[in-house]
């Protein structure tokens, strides 16, 4: 066992070395002629406006939350899948209950339209931003 995961450990170290060597070679032979404009952030040729470290669409966080639930589910399924053939019907019933609860969760998220990338009804406070799908639907 320790020999198996020892190899993984050495593979990580070798990976670091393997990335470093070409970077060092490149550092030695590549031209280095830095100017202020070259080191600027790329923004289609314009001068960069402000920092990019800003607030971001909440959709990504919701996706992350849903992912977390289902990824834990997948992790639970792995040991079950290994012993499934030995246990047969009992395993099917037990995991069936577990999966059905999660399917109910999926259905809930679906109905609440948290799976939509562009939500149908978003309250923007009646400003100049209109929901994207307002013209095509409703």
């Amino acid at each position: 066992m320790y020999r198996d995961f020892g190899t993984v450990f050495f593979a990580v170290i070798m990976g670091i070395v393997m990335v470093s060597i070409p970077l060092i070679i490149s550092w030695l032979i590549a031209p280095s002629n830095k100017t202020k404009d070259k080191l600027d952030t790329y923004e289609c040729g314009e001068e960069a406006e402000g920092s990019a470290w800003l607030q971001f669409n909440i959709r990504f966080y919701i996706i992350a939350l849903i992912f977390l639930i289902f990824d834990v589910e997948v992790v639970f399924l792995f040991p079950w899948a290994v012993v499934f053939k030995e246990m047969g019907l009992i395993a099917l019933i037990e995991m069936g209950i577990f999966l059905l609860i999660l399917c109910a969760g999926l259905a809930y998220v679906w109905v609440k339209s948290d799976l939509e990338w562009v939500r149908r009804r978003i309250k923007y406070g009646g400003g100049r931003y209109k929901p994207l799908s307002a013209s095509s639907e409703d």
Partner: protein
Amino acid sequence: MTVDFIFEFLSGLLDGFISSNSLLIISMLVPCLAIFGFITVYALVVIYAELKVSSFIQDKVGPMGQGVGLHAGKWGLLQPIADALKLLLKEDIIPSSADKPLFILAPFMIFIGAFISFIAIPFGESIIVTDLNIGIFYILGVGSIAVLSLILAGWASNNKWSLYGGMRSAAQIVSYEIPAGLSLIVVIMLAGTLNMQDIIKYQAGGIFNWIIFDNPFVPIAFVVYFISAIAETNRTPFDLPESESELVAGFATEYSGMRYAFFFLSEYANMFVVSAVAAAGFLGGWHSPIQGFMDSPAWGVFWMINKTGFLIFVMIWLRWTLPRLRVDQLMNVCWKVFLPLALINIFGVAIWTVVFNS
């Protein structure tokens, strides 16, 4: 497997010269070097293949030797080497407003994630660097390191395009990991093990013993896995994280030279990993399609590489055939089509196995 073999070989050869601990370390490092060599050669081959396949699909000739000068060798064979040299000679630029430590860390992480997946891939009956007892689980887990490095690259660049690309790639890879994982559950249910070699050994005896032909639900699982795998490697039609027509180059916008080359290399390495998992899990791994026909251990490598190569070819083929999806379509396909389909598949396979195998 291979580590033990090299260890015994070396201890027979160098008995008494070095302590057994350092000998063990050497025998762990040698296969890692071999894997790195393999990745490099494979990357050169597949870059050439990508250029040529895309050219033939688009009805042009692609890189060619141009008469007397022979710019890129015969049939453009030297093109990938020229590309690699060009990347090596490029000036390395780190934007002054970037988060420098994270910016440097990202290429390391993405390459290590791809590199350490390779050590659990079975190339033949005894050709596997470490035969981990949780092989397939390990590959899935290590594959997720790519998400971290892409979002790290996007964030550290301090560039709007990069941030968009990084966030999109995180959402996309993370979402498609679930259908891919659920589809591989089907394989594990049928084989009853997480060990890559045992999964392949379960499929011994001709094409109809391969897991993909085990019951009518498995081909669906294979298709779901393969499409999710393409999405996880950020290939067209799922290349939203680096869609060049909207995001310049996505998370890679600020990267140049060798640092960019490692993102590029890792994408191709990840293609190999997901294809090898598909070949080992569904298509019989190193088994020959006909029992007893070209079925020796040496031919095993041939079959494994060919099955994987075919799947990589399909990926390249899809890239040059299909247009890119939109973000909302991408998410819809994952959460509303693949996830329910994968769950139904698990139930289907479970019921089928209980009814017909007991």
